[in-house]
Each structure stands twice: as structure tokens, then as C-alpha cells.
């Protein structure tokens, strides 16, 4: 009993902070179900669900988040594999490069992509230099630019969970499969990949939620052409001062994120034998 009291005393300062956090979260919910006069109403939700303009934000965000996560998985899995199976030297170089990219200031990373993708950017200069194009190709202020920027930020979120799981999966299982006559490809798809499923599920959740709720990347690389749900929340709150509608969009975003978290979790558990949490 005294143990319990001591423990609660130790966590109480942190709990106090989290009370503020949850109080703040609750105000979003309560704002979203009130009109400007303060009466209870679902008007904001009805307006959101019946307006194609608002639903467009949602659809674009879901679409980009889905395929960026898929590409990040395909591009990221090999990195995680090399980080856990490569020679110590090579693995640590790869890990450090990814960690430096991951910890670089987010705004700076996106500025870097602006330098890469702009009309006078590195890629367009290169394409012109090798004579592939005459006029600059539009790589920014559209969906492609946003997807490229999101991919770069989502990649480490995908790789680190997978590599930490793979590090604990002994390569002896693969060797045993090989010894029992499996081809290396069979061993990979039937042993290694299923055993790393918890990492894949974790990485997919982090990557999806990050992309779905992104705000900075679409506003710098999508401009006014390609805006996502994060932009809607920000613009409604900061430009339109419409906290009710911003709150509604936020509640919808949170619910849809949670839905996907549970969805990916159960899908991962169903499809892959090792994928239970």
C-alpha cells in the first residue's frame, strides 16, 4: 500500500501536466459541438460531411498517406534489413546517415526539398543539363511535391521500428529454413518477413498517421494547389478564427487516425502469422 502511495506521489507532477493536456483536448471536442452562441449542436459536423470542399481535404490526405506509407515500406524494409544483417561497419554508416536525416530540423528538410524540386532547382537543372527537358518540369506546388516531401520524413519512421524488431530476430531461423531446403526467397517471405511483422505494423502506423496529419509539408511543397486536412485545421483556426469548424476537422482527423491504427494492427495480425501485438 505504501508502495502505491509513493509511486503515485512520484508520478503526480507528470499527471498534473497531462491533466492540462487532456483539458486542452476536451476543449476541442466541446468547441466542435457548439455554435457561436454556445448552444449544443452538430451543425459543424453536418456542414463538414455535406461539403465536397471539406471532404476533398480528407480524401487527398487519406490517398497521399496510403501510397506514401506503401512506398516507404517498400523502400524502407531493405534499409532496416541491412541495418540488422549487414556488416557492423556498413550497418552503422547506414544507421547514422538515417539518424542524421531524421533528427535534422523539419523546416530545414523541407527547405532542402524546395531547393531540389523548384523550377530552377537541382533536379530541373540536372534534367536540362543532360538534355532531357527544355522547359522546367513541375515538381513542386502539386501532389507529387507533397508526396516526395512526406516520403523523406516518413522513411525513418518506417525503418526504425522494423530494424529494432529485425535485430531481435536471429538469422539462425533463416539459416534453418535454408538448411531444410527453402530457397532464400522462400526463407525471406515465409520466415523473416512474418517474424518482423510487429515492426512493419508499428512503422506503417507511425508513417500513415504522420502523413495523414501533416501540415508543414503540404503548405511548403503543395502551396495553394494541394492542401491537406492539416492545412484545413490550421487555416480555419488561424486565418478564419472558426474554432468550431477547426475543432470538427480535428476530431474527424483524430478518429480517422485511431481507426487506421486499429485497422492496420488487426490487418497485420490477420495477414501475417507473426503479426500479433
Amino acid at each position, binding site marked *: 500500500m505504501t508502495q*502505491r502511495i*509513493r509511486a503515485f506521489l512520484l508520478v503526480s507532477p507528470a499527471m498534473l501536466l497531462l491533466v492540462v493536456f487532456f483539458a486542452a483536448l476536451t476543449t476541442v471536442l466541446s468547441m466542435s459541438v457548439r455554435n457561436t452562441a454556445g448552444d449544443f449542436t452538430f451543425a459543424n459536423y453536418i456542414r463538414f460531411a455535406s461539403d465536397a470542399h471539406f471532404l476533398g481535404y480528407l480524401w487527398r490526405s487519406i490517398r497521399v498517406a496510403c501510397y506514401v506509407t506503401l512506398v516507404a515500406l517498400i*523502400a524502407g524494409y531493405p*534499409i532496416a534489413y541491412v541495418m540488422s544483417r549487414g556488416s557492423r561497419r556498413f550497418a552503422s554508416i547506414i544507421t547514422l546517415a538515417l539518424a542524421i536525416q531524421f533528427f535534422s530540423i523539419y523546416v530545414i528538410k523541407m527547405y532542402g526539398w*524546395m531547393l531540389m524540386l523548384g523550377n530552377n532547382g537541382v533536379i530541373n537543372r540536372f534534367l536540362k543539363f543532360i538534355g532531357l527537358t527544355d522547359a522546367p518540369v513541375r515538381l513542386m506546388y502539386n501532389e507529387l511535391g507533397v508526396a516526395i516531401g512526406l516520403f523523406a520524413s516518413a522513411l525513418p519512421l518506417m525503418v526504425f521500428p522494423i530494424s529494432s524488431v529485425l535485430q531481435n530476430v536471429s538469422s539462425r531461423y533463416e539459416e534453418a529454413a535454408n538448411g531444410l531446403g527453402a530457397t532464400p526467397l522462400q526463407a525471406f517471405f515465409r520466415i523473416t518477413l512474418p517474424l518482423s511483422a510487429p515492426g512493419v505494423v508499428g512503422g506503417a502506423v507511425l508513417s500513415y498517421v504522420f502523413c495523414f496529419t501533416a501540415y508543414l509539408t503540404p503548405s511548403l511543397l503543395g502551396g495553394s494547389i494541394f492542401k491537406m486536412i492539416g492545412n484545413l485545421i490550421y487555416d480555419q483556426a488561424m486565418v478564419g478564427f472558426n474554432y468550431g469548424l477547426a475543432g470538427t476537422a480535428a476530431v474527424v482527423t483524430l478518429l480517422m487516425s485511431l481507426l487506421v491504427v486499429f485497422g492496420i494492427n488487426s490487418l497485420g495480425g490477420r495477414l501475417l502469422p507473426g503479426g500479433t501485438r
Partner: protein
Amino acid sequence: MSAANARRRDPLYPIFAGISIVVLLWVVAPLIVTFFSAFSATTNASFPPEGFSLRWFRNVFEIDEFKTPFYRSIALAVISGFCAMTLGTLSALALTKYRFRGSEAIDALLMSPLIVPQVIIGLSFLIFVSRMQFTGKFTVLVVLHCVLTLPYAVRVIRASLTRVGRSLEEAAIGLGASPVKAFFLVTLPQIKAGIFAASFFCFVISFDNFTATAFLSQSNSTLPVEIYFYIETRVDPTISAIAALMMLGTTTFVLLIDRMVGVNRIT
């Protein structure tokens, strides 16, 4: 040696290694481009840079636009990091030292700021403080950043507490030290590396944060927010110079963490 042999026989390994190198070069390329564009002699932040000059670096220190946000970001990261570390250490101690009912719920609560998307955290703080008539205060940013960094502090410190175990501390208490004394003289020195790593980590998370902070920093803009408003309208090598300096900071941070606790422990 068997691992090296396994790699040699694994036909997937060279393919995966090749993909890794290409993908990593792709995501690191913008950082390299940004770094070198800072040395441009012209007003174009382009790569390869046109000419060579250090004038954009001088520009960074001369224009006031970024000076105040820079100091504000530093102060914010230090203060909120210190608070989060204090709260986080106490919570991590409770979770590792004591077995009690509800500890799993408390653990989940401590990690909850990681689950809620940052736009929503930012919006909720904005609405909350405007209802409390508390807008525009630096304190609000401190509280926000405490919330954002607390889960990381708890996680890193908890991991290092678990690793050192409790036997030495129990021995000290058995030999007559008070629990508080045993913590400061025995446990703390053992988790020093973890504390350093967690502090750096909190600092970087706070210093880097844009998405949640953008909702609260009209009058109190932090460095990332200021940079955002600057590059929304124009691109010039001043930002590249700031970026180059910050990249040096990030690289030092990652290498230092790697030396102290191993970078794969905290990612």
C-alpha cells in the same frame, strides 16, 4: 564469421544493400544541397553553388529577424527540457521501482502525447489558452513543449533504469543509506549516460518542433516558425546558412548520442 558467410550466401542482401544506398542518397541529397548552397556568392540558393563566399553566414548574425527567435527557441528548449526531464525521471522511477495496480494505465497516459497528432495538440492548446484568456504567453509554449517531450524523457530514462537494475541501490539502502541518498549517490551516477541522452533528445524535439508550436507563436515565434514564414515568401542563401549551422549541430548531436548510448537505442 558465420554472419559474414550468411551474408555472402544471401542473394537478397546485395539487392537490399543497393536499394538502401540509393534511397538514403535520395533522402540525404536535399541536406547536402542545402549545406553547399549556403556558400553561394550570388543571391541564388542554388546547387552547384555559384562562386564561393561566406557572406550569408555573416548575414545570419547581422539580421535581427532571426536573432530573437533563435534565443527564444534555445530558452524554450532548455526550460521545457529541464521540466520534462524532472517530471520524466520521477515518473520513470515510479514505474521501475514499484509494482502497483494502475501502472499500465499510467504508462499509457505518459505516452499519450505521442499518439495524438501534433496539429491537434497545437489546436487544442490554442483554443484552451484563448478560453483561459492566457494568449501570447511564453509559459504556454513551455507547457506545450513539456507535454511534447515528456514521453521521450520517460522512455529513455526508464530504459536505462531497467538496464542497471536495482541491486546496487538496495545494497546501499541495506547498508544504511536513505532512499533519497541512495538514488543520488548510487542510481543517478549509473544512469548518467541515459540522462544526458534524454536531455539532448528533449532539447532537439523541442527546438525542432514546428507543427504544434505554429498555432501558438504569433507574438512569440520560435526559430522554425520564423524560418517557415521567411521561406514561404522567398528563398535566399541566408536560410541555407542557418540550415548549414543547424545541420552541424544535428550531426554533432547524433554522433555524440551514438558514442554515449548508441543511436539505435533512442530511435
